[in-house]
């Protein structure tokens, strides 16, 4: 981690990291004044906020719905199946996306075709990229994320449910007044962690989903760091970009944590 000083130096292979001359903020300035800066920042934020908007509430809804089901077997089956995609590797996940969304023979376009809709080149269309990324991510991780909420729901005091029943609460009222407060602490913690990761969304999947047609919306900070740093061997510049990313993340995390502490008394520390 101390090698991060590289961001403030002019890296020279022969002199090594510590021997290279200091250049202060040169690479940060270079990055901020680079035309890609705006695009990268916008893409990174757009994708992760979209993911947060879809990926945060859906597991909660799933857990609340599962909690209403009293039949043990149905509940177990739904849980087992929705949890399973989590174990598919990124590489396989991306290839599944590609097979399913292929322009002519992908199953999705075949279904659209039978409904009389023209085939869509999902991965070649920059406007579709975010949705493809976000919804496949939700597909893969909703069941996994729901587990924490289910556990929180299992820990709700049963006497609260009895009281709600005696008071004649409907199911919906019971969910809203008993279940939701019950999972709120867990939800706040997870929200904090998610916001703290806003700038570091999965490099692995986006990098694999990228193609020349969709880079206008799919190039994010971490893929850019990889390309500039390791593929073009521009170490100092890439380190500066990466460091910028980390600092933003830390600031976001601390801010959200502070806000959460104020508003709901739940926080990471």
């Amino acid at each position, binding site marked *: *981690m*101390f*090698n*991060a000083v*590289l961001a403030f130096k002019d890296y020279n292979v022969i002199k090594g*990291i510590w021997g290279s001359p200091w250049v202060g903020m040169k690479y940060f300035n270079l990055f901020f004044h680079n035309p890609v800066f705006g695009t990268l920042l916008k893409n990174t934020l757009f994708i992760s906020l979209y993911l947060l908007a879809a990926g945060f509430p859906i597991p909660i809804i*799933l857990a609340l*719905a*599962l909690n*209403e*089901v009293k039949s043990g077997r*149905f509940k177990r089956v*739904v849980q*087992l*199946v*929705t*949890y*399973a995609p989590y*174990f*598919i*590797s*990124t*590489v*396989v996940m*991306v*290839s*599944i996306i*590609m*097979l*399913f969304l292929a322009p002519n*023979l992908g*199953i999705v376009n075949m279904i659209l075709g039978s409904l009389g809709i023209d085939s869509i080149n999902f991965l070649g269309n920059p406007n579709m990229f975010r949705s493809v990324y976000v919804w496949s991510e939700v*597909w893969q991780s909703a069941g996994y994320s729901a*587990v*924490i909420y289910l*556990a929180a729901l299992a820990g709700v005091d049963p006497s609260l449910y009895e009281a709600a*029943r005696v008071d*004649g609460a*409907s*199911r*919906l009222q019971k969910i809203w007044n008993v279940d939701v407060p019950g999972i709120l602490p*867990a939800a706040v*913690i997870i929200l904090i*962690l998610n916001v703290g990761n806003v700038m570091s969304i999965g*490099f*692995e999947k986006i990098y*694999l989903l990228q193609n020349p047609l969709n880079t206008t919306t799919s190039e994010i900070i*971490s893929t850019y*760091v*990889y390309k500039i*740093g*390791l593929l073009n061997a521009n170490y100092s510049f*890439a*380190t500066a970009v*990466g*460091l910028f990313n*980390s*600092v933003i*993340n*830390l600031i976001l995390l601390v801010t959200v944590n502070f806000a959460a502490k104020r508003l709901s008394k739940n926080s990471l520390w």
Partner: protein
Amino acid sequence: MAGVKQKIRESYGDRIFLVCIYVFLAIILAVTLYPLIFIVSSSFSSPSAVSGGRVWLWPVEATLIGYKSALQNSQIVTGYANSIFYTAFGTLISVALTTMIAYPLSRKTFFGRSGLMMFIVFTMLFSGGLIPTYLVVKAVGLIDTRWALLLPNAIWVWQVIIARTFFSTSIPDELAEASEMDGCSDLRFIWNVVLSLSKPILAVLALMYAVGQWNAYFDALIYLKTNDLFPLQLFLRSILIQNANSGGLNAGQIADTQQLLALMKYSIIVVSSLPVLIVYPFVQRYFVQGMLIGSVKG
């Protein structure tokens, strides 16, 4: 609202609501399950059925040809062997190191433990980034060796937190004191008492590390250059995503190569995800347990 009799009955609205919930869950179930079934069905179908888009739900013209050509592919075989090696050794190293760091941190008598813990958690929240990490690995001389996949990511901070929480809640200090009174050395205490009491947490750690190691490709992508060292995921990337020409097809098949490749992708997906997906239903509760321990105190 509910008619008040001896037992409170469900109201009409509630029953409709419950039906809606069941429908909602059934839709989710179908949406999750269908792609999985489709992949498995495709992998058992004939090349022409897959390329012609005739597979909808069940295998069409069932055959094992996709699997045959997948298993004849030299890259898949090499990758499989390498991945088994990385998963086995990586898990062993990771679990050992995680236990070794988490146990001392769980003891109240350990000097400077909160400082050390803060330092460890800080690395989770803030990292130097890709390039500095890469340069360290390079300076240590691990580039393009098997160690590059085993050591740099051997310890996940999250796992340390889980293990530490477990050790500090389920192994009371009194137990350590009692053993000390009986003349048990610290090392023997860890080996005989702590580890045998911690089997559940060791299982959680091992499973999480093993799945992580099996599915990882990024470290291999940046640290490895020699094909012989590649884990399965990296070969999968070149076959499935980059459509690289793959070895193992004989001359007679060339006419059907295109069709066969399409089929083979499905078979390869199944073959490569199989180890994890088969084991997972049996060990699901360990994963759930792991997440819960971790979430008790983040």
